């Protein structure tokens, strides 16, 4: 299970709101080739790993993303 941390990994301070850029970023985050989809792929790939190193690294990268 995962816990929520009430802070960002890196602080975001938006000086000039830019809707076009925001759209790109939200796509990178939640779109079909985005972080969210990638993280879920790592988390299902981990079930097929034959060695401890590979299980751990996929579990942890999936978690971190």
């Amino acid at each position, binding site marked *: 299970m995962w*816990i929520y941390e*009430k*802070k*960002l990994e890196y*602080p975001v301070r938006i000086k000039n709101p830019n809707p076009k850029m925001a759209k790109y970023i939200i796509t990178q985050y939640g779109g079909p080739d985005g972080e969210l989809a990638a993280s879920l792929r790592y988390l299902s790939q981990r079930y097929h790993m034959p060695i401890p190193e590979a299980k751990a690294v996929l579990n*942890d*990268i999936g978690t*971190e993303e």
Partner: protein
Amino acid sequence: MNHTRTDNAGKELLDQIRAIEFMTVDLNLYLDTHPNDCRAMNEYNCYVRQLQALKREYEMQYGPLANFGNAMSTCPWRWIEEPWPWEEGI
């Protein structure tokens, strides 16, 4: 409800926490594939100790950083205090 999460000392503490946590994430991923590197592991443990101390310090003053039993709260329940990370970039 106090909104102390945004004061300068709190922000500075959080920046320190973030910097150290970045080291622990990166060392952790490295150690996953290099589990016999004891030098890296000692470094990891050293950052863990620092991180725990800093988080304790932050949470006592500014409220819990994590939910579901990972940090204590004073009364009233401080988890619901604003701002959330998506509200002010915290």
